[in-house]
């Protein structure tokens, strides 16, 4: 199931969300936020890690590759407005100042699911992309922040 379909990242995530949202909502209604919902979240994270490894193959697994990934794939098709603050061989810092992914979930009134399905993928993605890098992020637009502060750096 690795066939790549030519489509923008934002549209792909919206299409996936159309079926994931009712599915995860049903799981939560039935089981709450317990172990079953965690199985679902863990599976989504595992997929994100796989995707990270594929992206590393396409863009290179270094900081420059990460920046290209963010600017062309994540932000592609107007998905994100990104402001790069700092880039060296060991770190990349950028703020997302507008996020159409968050807008999509907010229009549905489902920001909490957006955090679970969408934002939480990023940490797992980095592990698959390059296990020597780590991401810290103190706030996201999905969770009500004014921006998402992505700070990637090489692990010490």
């Amino acid at each position: 199931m690795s066939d790549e379909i030519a489509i923008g990242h934002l549209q792909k995530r919206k299409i996936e969300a159309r079926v994931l949202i009712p599915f995860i909502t049903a799981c939560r209604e039935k089981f709450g936020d317990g172990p079953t919902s965690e199985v679902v979240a863990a599976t989504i994270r595992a997929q994100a890690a796989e995707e990270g490894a594929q992206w590393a193959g396409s863009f290179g697994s270094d900081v420059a590759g990460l920046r290209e990934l963010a600017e062309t794939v994540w932000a592609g098709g107007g998905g994100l407005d990104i402001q790069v603050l700092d880039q060296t061989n060991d770190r990349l810092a950028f703020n997302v100042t507008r996020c159409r992914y968050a807008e999509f979930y907010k229009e549905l009134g489902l920001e909490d699911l957006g955090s679970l399905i969408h934002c939480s993928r990023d940490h797992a993605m980095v592990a698959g992309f390059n296990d020597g890098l780590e991401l810290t992020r103190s706030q996201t637009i999905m969770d009500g922040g004014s921006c998402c502060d992505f700070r990637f750096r090489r692990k010490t």
Partner: protein
Amino acid sequence: MTSVLDDYLVDPKVSLLDKTRIQAQVLVPVLRALRAELGNDKADAIVKQALRDWSRQLFAAVGDAIEGSPRRKWASLQSALGEVTLREVEFEIRRHDKEALEFDVTRCRFAEFFRALGEPELGALLICETDFDIASAGDGEVSLDRAQTIMRGAPSCTFRYKFAPRP
């Protein structure tokens, strides 16, 4: 071009087959993890209920937004669905008059995809059941009977629509 099915299709530039493949790629691993956790029956029951409720609500809302009689709502939905599905199927019309529309689908790329994936029931939920949700928009004026589908292993899908006499 806008279609009455925009909410369903998300992006009209993506074919329905590709859209469904994208959804299966993300849903199948989650479903399989849930089966491992809960057992097949329980996990499949959850996905069935979730996807059926979602599809019913979605098409009911789309149908409500179309003006006219139930028959007209159905015709409008059916035609929009045809635009995105006919390229993926081969079919033979058996009967088409004011009382009935009967046709057999003899090849279906949706079924081929989901059967190759080993998940025909998921395919039935994501694709085949849609026809009944659309028939529901015909509220009393259109009914669908379909004894068999390729998705579930039959050689053809036997679509049999009946139309109530016009007043």
